[in-house]
């Protein structure tokens, strides 16, 4: 698995498919913080976590379409198609997690507050994790091998990101609103969004890895 991860990570960096998600994330973070000059750390972290959903979905999509079918076939013969797929998803998630962490650190540094940072920072990281998990699930569920038509995959990914943001059934939405000022959703007790996001991720990755061997041409 280590070898597969090295290969997929190297492929991500060499193929420059990380550039677009990085620029998008950096732009959105700076734009989000620009207007509110010295906004509360919690708000900044919420924002950086929220935009991690599309960024993670985009990264996942990039990775799922990065490897030519023939190259994937060679890897699959050596390691099995499911493991090859898992390594791809893990590499994308790791890259997104690094982005998320960097984003949270940026918010920490640029926030106006100088005291009592640890608790909101850790809470913010928790939300970022939920958003990263949901973003990865979205990218996995609405891209190959589940949805193979390029246009359909792209459009449904975008739609799913919006749903993940606004729908009350989304763990990401619940996490972002859960600890916000006063809105404490009764349906989502503490910790549940994270657990739900993990379940969603496990399910989507499971389906993707299972299908990778069956739909491989």
């Amino acid at each position: 698995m280590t070898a597969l991860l090295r290969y997929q990570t190297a492929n991500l960096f060499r193929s420059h498919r990380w550039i677009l998600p990085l620029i998008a994330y950096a732009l959105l973070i700076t734009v989000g913080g620009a207007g509110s000059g010295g906004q509360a750390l919690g708000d900044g972290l919420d924002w950086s976590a929220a935009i991690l959903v599309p960024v993670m979905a985009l990264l996942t999509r990039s990775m799922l379409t990065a490897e030519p079918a023939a190259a994937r076939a060679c890897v699959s013969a050596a390691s099995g198609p499911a493991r090859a797929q898992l390594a791809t998803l893990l590499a994308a998630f790791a890259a997104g997690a690094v982005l998320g962490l960097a984003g949270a650190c940026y918010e920490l540094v640029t926030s106006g507050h100088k005291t009592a940072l640890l608790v909101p920072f850790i809470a913010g990281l928790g939300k970022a994790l939920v958003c990263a998990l949901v973003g990865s699930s979205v990218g996995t569920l609405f891209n190959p091998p589940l949805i193979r038509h390029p246009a359909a995959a792209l459009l449904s990914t975008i739609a799913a990101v919006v749903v993940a943001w606004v729908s009350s059934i989304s763990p990401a939405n619940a996490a972002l609103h859960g600890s916000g000022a006063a809105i404490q959703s009764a349906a989502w007790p503490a910790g549940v969004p994270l657990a739900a996001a993990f379940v969603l991720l496990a399910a989507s990755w499971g389906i993707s890895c299972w299908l990778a061997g069956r739909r491989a041409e």
Partner: protein
Amino acid sequence: MLRCRRSGRGVSELRLEAVGKRYGLRQPWIVRDVSAEIAAGRLIRLEGPNGSGKSTLLRLLAGVTMPSAGKVTGRPHAGYVPERFPGGLAFSAREYLRHLGRIHGLSGFEVTRAADDWLERLGATDYARAPLKTLSKGMCQKVAIAQALLARPGLLVLDEAWTGLDQAARGALDAAVDERLGEGATVLFVDHDPARLADRVDERWQLGGGAAVTMTTGPAGNGPAGGAGSVAGGARTAAGRAEPVALEQGAEGAGSQAAGPGSAPIAAIIEVTGLEAGSLARLGALSGVLGASADAAAADDPFLKLGPVQVTVAVEASDSVLRELLSWDGVHVATVRVSPVRASPGPGQDGHSTGSGRR
């Protein structure tokens, strides 16, 4: 010795059990109901027209794609060379091979040596540092071949791997296949050149319409005309509605083929199981049946199931006899092979039976 680290299954043989593949529930079957036991150390050639499912069957064997029905078991560590390897990755040839070598289970030191070694053997050393994207089709093909061979796999699957290679590299690949076979690995391949490794081939699998596979053993007999060809066709037709049939061709058959395909006095020998003693007369009455060997002692009880019975059939009639036999209840065709006609075909005339094609 073999370095089948990932498999660790020792001597277990590669088995296909009623394997089928289709890409979607409403899609047609590309490969269907293929059963085979592949002993280690065999060289198997897959033949068939375009679209007959050769590549798909190779992918199933290599573990690149999972079957939609049935299962593949006992697969050793596999190396796979795809039909086209377009590069498209942002690695240099050497970097790519290092990554693939590690994925194949080699250590860092082994992988560097193996990668350089294979690039040199295939005549690609000068391009080791070039990005895959800039390589020609032939050079990409060499890289694909090198990655498959790096870890000396127990199963090598070559999908038209020779296409696009220069003469020297073709020779190197032939030698590499020899080497793999020598170390006890199984090699399966598809190639357009009927002469490719012709003297080494142990088995031929003919894929035709109807997603059935006909399996032949023996090195010769690559012409569509002649006895073997016509039997293969018959078996294929029959297998389409029953079960895959193993077509065997003994060494004698190969000899008579070489002497003059079509004109040599050869007959098809069909080995059937599950035949009832009382059906022997019915069998003898079929047109084209020249004789049948059976355990004479068994003839007392007409309903007794006989052991394997070898039916000698005129080649021209093999098609219709096979079809008839397959329509009989409880009767299974185990093998079909082509052999020169002898006065009394008996058990002593056995070819080497692999039992492939049986469920």
